[in-house]
């Protein structure tokens, strides 16, 4: 769980992403993708949605066919929405710059992470594209050992080895020592704080000593997943053409970090600075426009994985979903995102593009501020019955049909039903609080409220007994929270309006308020932040993406750094810590099940991330398309067809 995933969540709503790549015509993909490729052929023939993703509920449209005859070369133009544009190149990304776009759609083309997220839409480490083999845990889980696959090398010829991992960890420690804000994914007490020592026990083997044992899935997916090896022989300098320093000496590490991050702040030199030309990823940066984030990349001949076959990758930005869609209509993009708001016109591009979409892991929700004392809100929202009532007021099916144009899946808790996850709890499969104005009204009535439809509902039975309004709610108290939502994309506003309209029918007056995403995340994202605490009651900035191991650690546990609303519940805390430290593989399901029932936030539909992929594009590996929806672009597998 990390900051970039928050920033990410808004982007996801505006939903423009997707790497471009060309895969080698040859090369049958690996076992894990076998089913993928086989179904891909059927899919190519039937053209209907199919395959691993095809069977997934919530798949919108048709996945592009794979395995078509390839031709080399070609320029892939890839559309991204403005604001989703990359603005940081150094793998240790500070909070301010932390977004999926910087990592998955920019840096990971250049610098391959140690472990690569999903396999298509299956929440597993993808061994084929990961830089290291799966780790082994010993010493009661307190020792982790993993080895880098040989064959990967930096573009300056040096091999990618254990030192590059240690270099990263040392630099990361130096960075977070300076300021927590220097690493967006930093959570105090967790990586790298929980690494006592990192040693190269072989040229390619790294052994980590941990402070304590963890749930292995958690540690592998959520902690080791943060590591991106860096060229320890090229970047270990503190000034241009300066001496190569021993980064294991903390002082040097700090000096190096300062130099590299300072270089990373000079966006205008990204394409020219020799530092950033030392890469181990499939691509190499050739031009970069700081203000728009538009960039051009060419294949990196030294890439140790699948050799890229197209000749150039261009990232272009747009100001509005329509602007991007117009370009799709004009056929000027190879891959571009499609917003729900333009789905009605999708037929205009279906001749040229395969259009498909899926939700990604994680959840979208409007967060309650449990510390906003304005109008007794904190007391009111602390009442389970009220949270349940609010859940009853949300007509997800209608939203999906009317607003999302069908391109979304109902979601009732932190772990949704689509894409399918082994962790999805039973109670999240059917809506525990189905849309029903009367149900909501009854819940209120039975707890001492006088419900005035389209008027103002009042508390008439203050007190703490069952059937009373509850602690801290005085007589004649009303329910009138202020709800903020991001002004772009429009879908959030429309959803909020529909919700507020429903609430009005039980006398709950929600004052809506649109703000930019940045404003909400930078001002209304910390419960109890004295400056703004009482300014917001509900905040729908989007939601969170989940890592492969979807614990809500940091989100719903007391004091979690992304616990926006200050939700605090003993049971929840216990269940979350089980997921993180316990060995029970079901712990995370139990956690999700409890939260689904408790409704610590208003869970909203999991929207699809819809892509238009030119019919001239194919891939050797279907997952490389479906993974787009999970922000796991694998350009190396993509190619233009004959």
């Amino acid at each position, binding site marked *: 769980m990390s900051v970039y995933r928050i920033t990410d969540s808004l982007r996801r709503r505006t939903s423009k992403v997707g790497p471009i790549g060309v895969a080698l015509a040859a090369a049958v993909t690996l076992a894990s993708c076998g089913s993928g490729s086989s179904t891909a052929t059927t899919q190519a023939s039937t053209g209907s949605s199919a395959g691993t993703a095809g069977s997934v509920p919530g798949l919108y449209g048709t996945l592009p066919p794979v395995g078509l005859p390839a031709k080399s070369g070609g320029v892939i133009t890839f559309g991204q929405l403005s604001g989703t544009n990359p603005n940081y190149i150094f793998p240790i990304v500070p909070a301010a710059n932390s977004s999926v776009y910087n990592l998955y759609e920019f840096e990971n083309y250049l610098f391959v992470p140690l472990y690569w997220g999903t396999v298509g839409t299956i929440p597993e480490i993808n061994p084929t594209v990961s830089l290291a083999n799966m780790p082994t845990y010993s010493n009661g889980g307190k020792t982790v050992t993993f080895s880098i696959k040989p064959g990967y090398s930096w573009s300056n010829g040096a091999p990618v080895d254990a030192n590059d991992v240690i270099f990263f960890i040392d630099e990361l420690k130096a960075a977070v020592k300076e300021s927590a804000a220097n690493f967006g994914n930093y959570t105090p007490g967790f990586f790298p704080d929980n690494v006592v020592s990192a040693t190269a026990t072989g040229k390619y083997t790294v052994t980590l000593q941990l402070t304590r044992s963890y749930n292995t899935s958690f540690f592998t997916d959520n902690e080791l997943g943060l590591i991106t090896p860096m060229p320890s022989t090229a970047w270990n300098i503190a000034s241009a053409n300066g001496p190569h320093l021993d980064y294991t000496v903390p002082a040097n590490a700090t000096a190096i970090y300062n130099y590299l991050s300072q270089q990373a702040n000079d966006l205008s030199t990204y394409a020219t600075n020799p530092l950033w030309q030392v890469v181990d990823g499939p691509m190499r940066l050739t031009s970069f426009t700081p203000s728009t984030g538009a960039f051009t990349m060419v294949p990196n001949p030294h890439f140790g994985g699948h050799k890229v076959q197209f000749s150039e990758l261009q990232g272009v930005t747009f100001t*509005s979903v329509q602007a991007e869609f117009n370009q799709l209509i004009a056929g000027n993009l190879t891959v571009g995102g499609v917003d729900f708001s*333009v789905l009605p*016109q999708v037929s205009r591009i279906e001749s040229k593009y395969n259009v498909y979409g899926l939700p990604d892991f994680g959840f979208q929700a409007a967060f309650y501020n449990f510390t906003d004392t304005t109008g007794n809100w904190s007391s009111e929202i602390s009442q389970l019955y009220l949270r349940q009532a609010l859940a009853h007021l949300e007509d997800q099916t209608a*939203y999906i049909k009317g607003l999302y144009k069908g391109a979304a899946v109902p979601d009732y808790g932190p772990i949704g039903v689509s894409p399918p996850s082994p962790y999805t709890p039973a109670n999240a499969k059917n809506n525990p609080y189905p849309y029903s104005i009367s149900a909501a009204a009854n819940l209120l009535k039975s707890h001492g409220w006088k419900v005035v439809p389209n008027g103002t509902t009042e508390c008439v039975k203050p007190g703490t007994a069952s059937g009373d309004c509850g602690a801290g709610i005085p007589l004649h108290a009303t329910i009138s929270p202020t709800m903020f939502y991001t002004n772009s994309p*429009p879908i959030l506003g*429309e959803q909020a309006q*529909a919700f507020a*309209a429903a609430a*009005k029918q039980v006398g709950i007056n929600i004052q809506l308020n649109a703000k930019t995403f940045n404003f909400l995340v930078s001002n209304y994202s910390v419960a109890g932040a004295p400056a703004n605490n009482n300014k917001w009651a509900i905040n729908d900035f989007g939601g969170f993406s989940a890592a492969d191991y979807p614990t809500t650690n940091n989100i719903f546990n007391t004091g979690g750094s992304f616990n926006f609303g200050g939700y605090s519940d003993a049971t929840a805390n216990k269940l979350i810590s089980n997921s993180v430290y316990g060995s029970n593989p079901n712990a995370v399901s139990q956690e999700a099940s409890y939260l689904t029932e408790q409704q610590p936030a208003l869970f909203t539909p999991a929207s699809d991330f819809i892509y238009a992929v030119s019919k001239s594009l194919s891939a050797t590996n279907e997952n490389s398309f479906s993974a787009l929806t999970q922000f796991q672009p694998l350009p190396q597998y993509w190619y233009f067809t004959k």
Partner: protein
Amino acid sequence: MEERETEGVEESPLNLGGGIGPFEPGITDPLDGGEVDDTVTSGWRLAVRSFAENKLAIVGLGILIFFVLFCYVGPHVYHSNQISGNVLNSDLPPGSGHPLGTDNNGYDELGRLMVGGQAALEIGFFAAIIATVIGSLYGAISGLIGGLLDGVMMRIVDVILSIPYLLIVLIVATRYSGTVLSLSLILGLFAWLVPARLIRGEVLSLRVRDFVSAAKVMGSGRTRLIFRHLLPNALSVVIVNITFQVADAIIAIALLGFLGFGLQYPHVDWGDMLSTANTALGNGYWWLVYPVGISLILVVMACNFIGNALRDSVDVRLRRR
């Protein structure tokens, strides 16, 4: 030059040759000042007359009145639920039950048009009033006191006027959430500069007119000069200005709305309704774009028509002096 011949000085049309009967040469009565017509026509009435003669103005007035009725009386005649729309009915094309279809949230577009119009007209009007009041006072003070203060005050105007209105308004709008009041204030507080200049100019030109000197000669004090002579005469300029201010404000709302800084649910103005115009057109939801767009243009145009006509008619009166 004083002795400039008065060719073209128009005698009052109300005086058709004040004839008196036959007379003996030499006994002309100096006490015959000629006839005076029976019907009184005040400056305003004259203005109104020439206004009424201006077809465009009448059209403009008609349009404006129509929209005022449409927006304020309309909802009482044509009932539609603007509080809770049915999302399942979103984006319906015009048809039975929904003459203008429905919008993304399933609100009836015709009803929306009325409600949105109310906000647009109100904001336009309030903003105009705010701007004009501030501007008039500022300009009057600056013009009346003159001297260094005038210089400084006008430099201040220059400064703010040099900064593009829209930019400032947008920046401020990022901070304050849109309500009719806040938008009126934001728009009004940055639009007073033009009226300020106008009024100042008018006051300056009035200050040196003979009738002001005449009042001074009678021993009239400063306050009397200002409130009996200068301001009343500058008033016409003010009034003309208001109409243009309204037009500008409504356009500004449209821009704010389009860029996503408009009003908040449940309130809506025409600008907000256009915020998704780009996609709506693409989707072929023309009914979400053209009705509101055309209404907006018509109202703005109406204001401009009226403004121009007023200006002309006021000029007429001043020309006739």
